[in-house]
């Protein structure tokens, strides 16, 4: 990449590395060329053509996203020809698009709308093609709604589903005027391999792919005097919510978020981090139990590596793609579902509220959580664990609806109980976090000593996104009851993004790698890059959120799950012991093999 290319953009001479596109070169000069199909996380498609520019001595207008800069190139990004062509392209997209913006969930946060307003497309140049199209809306899914009438066929979703997630639930069907984004045999998203991860939703420039929103249902519950509405907030929400409300990327807004939720009228503002800590206790013991069965009892039925089960996108992915590995999944419910189950049992008892009057709401960086909450097995208390799941984006909308000046809100603390947490729980929001939290606890249970990493920071499992990471921890000088683990090298692997999860699982399947414990998060970067997070999300934004998460961890007075005092309390008052009878009933679950299309 040492070779430099010299070119001229809008009269400015610039030198860039070989391989740089015209678009990137222009951005370096702070010249903003509009784009639609382009997304930093995805391969270049070059199909919307909005980013065309004029190149001197070339007849056609090259797409700047797809054209590498060449020596001596003279580019005009805003010539008469370019302006005309761009306007035509946006007008063409609008003519095919259901532009009834006031009825659209993405109104105000739509890239096509943004361009239309920039180009003053008041005088629609072309005929309206929408009435002749038989567009369909797939509303059958509990997590994601797909509205073809809003689709501009940029294929960001298709590339996301294939490249980042290796799921390929979405693909291109038909050609010409009938070309559309569709699924296997045009089934509804709930009938195909879709994992509900929402990465497509996060990348859709328009309102064609959106989360199913439950904002009105939540308001109804809040205003219903007979209902007691509890809300839990996931770790990754507090480092991203600010973005949805106009704040800078990577700001930690935990206190303001709590204050906002209280002002919205939730009766109790609690923390998913509490059950993240609980997950670590249950899952840690589950791992140790499995290791004992494998190493001491030589039980051939025990399944290793054990895989984390916090990410519902990953759960549905493995159910479809590697159903033979379902026994490897930890039976622990995700922190969201554990919280929901406890809200209607432990919390209800302690607060003396009839569980039927409790409405449990969760704020998640995730769309798959909506699907998870609606799984039939997630009602072991006799009530639905979690009634409504809102994404970070939906909470942002509610805060705006309520007219709160978010930045000016005071910092408030979560209610207790089920509101206290540790740094170990916070890092659940980042890839590698569950692994790190589990190791902090499991190592200490077994050896009585802290993990041998500087400042409890198990950096080998943090790493960067976009690869399968491995770490080995040697267990030494164990307590007598764990003597079978003396000298054992605990092999761990971490993957984020389902494409990497697939690689990891294939390595396991083909025997290329053996592990004891693996952590998988369905979304790139983990929950902080979740499908329910503010739009846009890209690599740079994810890395800022990640820094915020680890900063939050460092700032917590307690950083190990087993030291959370409320955890000790819940075992004493309610659950009795890890993996005990009550735990099994309320906090553990089972999985369903699914078809591969």
């Amino acid at each position, binding site marked *: 990449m040492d070779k430099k290319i010299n070119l001229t953009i809008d009269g400015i001479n610039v030198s860039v590395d070989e391989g740089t596109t015209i678009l990137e070169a222009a951005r370096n000069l702070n010249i903003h060329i509009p784009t639609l199909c382009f997304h930093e996380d995805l391969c*270049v*498609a*070059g*199909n*919307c*053509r*909005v980013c*065309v520019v004029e190149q001197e001595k070339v*007849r*056609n*207008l090259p*797409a700047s996203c*797809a*054209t*590498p800069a060449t020596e001596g190139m003279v580019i005009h990004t805003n010539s008469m*020809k370019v302006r*005309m*062509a761009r306007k*035509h*392209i946006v007008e*063409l*997209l609008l*003519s*095919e698009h259901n532009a009834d913006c006031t009825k659209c969930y993405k109104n105000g946060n739509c890239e096509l709308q943004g361009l239309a307003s920039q180009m003053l497309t008041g005088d629609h*140049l*072309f*005929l309206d*093609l929408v009435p002749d199209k038989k567009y369909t809306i797939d509303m059958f899914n509990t997590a994601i709604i797909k509205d073809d009438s809003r689709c*501009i*066929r940029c*294929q960001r979703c298709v590339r996301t589903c294939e490249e980042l997630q290796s799921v390929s639930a979405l693909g*291109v069907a*038909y*050609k*010409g*005027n*009938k*070309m559309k984004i569709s699924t296997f045999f045009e089934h509804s998203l709930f009938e195909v391999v879709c994992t509900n991860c929402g990465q497509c939703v996060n990348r859709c420039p328009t309102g064609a792919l959106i989360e199913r929103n439950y904002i009105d249902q939540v308001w109804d519950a809040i205003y219903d005097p007979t209902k007691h509405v509890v809300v839990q907030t996931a770790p990754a929400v507090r480092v991203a919510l600010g973005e949805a409300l106009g704040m800078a990327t990577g700001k930690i807004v935990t206190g303001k978020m709590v204050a906002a939720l209280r002002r919205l009228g939730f009766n109790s503002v609690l923390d998913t981090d509490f059950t993240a800590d609980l997950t670590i206790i249950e899952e840690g013991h589950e791992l140790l139990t499995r290791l004992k069965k494998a190493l001491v009892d030589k039980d051939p039925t025990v399944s290793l590596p054990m895989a984390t089960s916090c990410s519902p996108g990953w759960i549905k992915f493995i159910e479809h793609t590697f159903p033979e590995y379902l026994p490897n999944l930890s039976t622990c419910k995700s922190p969201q579902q554990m919280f929901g189950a406890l809200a209607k049992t432990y919390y209800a008892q302690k607060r003396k509220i009839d569980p039927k009057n409790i409405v449990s709401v969760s704020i998640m960086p995730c769309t798959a959580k909506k699907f998870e909450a609606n799984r039939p097995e997630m009602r072991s208390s006799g009530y639905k664990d979690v009634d409504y799941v809102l994404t970070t984006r939906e909470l942002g909308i509610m805060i705006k609806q309520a007219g709160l000046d978010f930045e000016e809100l005071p910092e408030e603390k979560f209610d207790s109980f089920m509101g206290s947490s540790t740094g170990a729980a916070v890092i659940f929001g980042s890839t590698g976090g569950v692994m790190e939290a589990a190791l902090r606890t499991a190592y200490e249970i077994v050896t009585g000593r802290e993990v041998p990493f500087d400042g409890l920071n198990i950096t080998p499992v943090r790493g960067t996104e976009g690869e399968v990471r491995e770490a080995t921890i040697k267990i030494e000088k164990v307590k007598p009851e764990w003597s079978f683990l003396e000298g054992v090298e605990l092999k761990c692997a971490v993957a984020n993004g389902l494409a990497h999860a697939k690689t990891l699982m294939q390595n396991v399947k083909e025997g290329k790698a053996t592990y004891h414990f693996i952590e998988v998060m369905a979304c790139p970067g983990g929950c902080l890059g979740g499908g329910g997070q503010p739009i846009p999300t890209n690599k740079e934004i994810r890395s800022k959120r990640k820094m915020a998460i680890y900063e939050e961890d460092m700032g917590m007075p307690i950083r190990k799950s087993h030291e959370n005092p409320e955890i000790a309390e819940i075992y004493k008052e309610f659950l009795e012991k890890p993996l005990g009878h009550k735990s099994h009933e309320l906090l553990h679950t089972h999985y369903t093999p699914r078809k591969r299309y």
Partner: protein
Amino acid sequence: MSEQTLKRVDLIFGEYSNEKYKVLATTLERTNEDILKDILESGLRGRGGAGFPTAMKWKFTAETPGDEKYVVCNADEGEPGTFKDREILLRVPRKVFSGMAICGRVIGAKKGLMYLRGEYKFMVPELMKELDSYHEHVKQLGFDFTIEIRMGSGAYICGEESALFESMEGGRGEPRNKPPYPTTSGFMKKPTVINNVETFVNVLMIMRLGPDQYKKLGTTDSRGSKVFSVSGDTPIPGIYELELGMSLDRFVDEFGDGDTKAVQVGGASGFCVPRKKFKDTVIGFEGVPTGGSMMIFNSSRSMYNVLHNYLEFFEEESCGQCTPCRVGCQQLLKGIVAVKKGEKKAVYLDQLMKLSESMKITAKCGLGQSVANSFSSIVNNFKEEMIY
């Protein structure tokens, strides 16, 4: 097709030796530089329609480093009104295979692929028979270059070279971004020469005749002869091999029915030439180029219907990925209907004309870029037929 319908030139279809693959055998004795020099000298340009200089294409691919290279024969003859490759493949397939083999030698490829139009499936058994014979001959010559046939499935867009590669690789037939061009990244992202069926035959012809003899046919810009597919209002439709560079009025004299109003040169993606311009129109790269399609319309034809038909074709055959082509084609079609019905004023045609210009310069591939050719040439020359 009988022999006597062929006119003027008989190089492509002719039999010149009883000994099969003789020209190939003698050519393989020559050096690559020598072969390339002859092709360059001959002035041969691609016969698929775009007319890229063949020698340059081969040279670039030969110069691209890489152990794995491919020769692809584009036999996805899909342009409306073109049916000459079909005739070539039915009658002289060995000339095509020979041309591919020569290309393989020059660029250093060991593998050739023929992408055959889905509708030409019927000719596969005969082609396979000839391929067996070809493989036997090259084996005897001690030359390692195998050829395989891959079937298309009827999509027009798969005749576009990069969409063709996608299709052969098992993907959806969608054109790629260019650059990179096939000479550096083609089939399986490897350096690839892709040429039309007729181009490969021309190469063999040049090898047999030598560039000087070959150059005697045609003009400076358009060397050699070309196989034309003549259809429409003509008493003698069929396949004709003619010298390039003739004027359209001479062509109409030969083939018209005496009442010719317009000729569509180059198929739906080509240009419509009205009667008043016959005299000044040269058929060749200096004038109106064609992949071979010549559709003749007499005065009983409605040019509105002709254009409507083309636009319906494009609206359906666009791959749909890029905005200008997918939506542009729909707008042009709906637009001329609206004007005809009086729902839009005649000036709307100007708006559509501007749109077609934008499509020409912004569409991702040749399909979307060339819709403007027939659209603007028909609308400009037969405006009254569009309105009344």
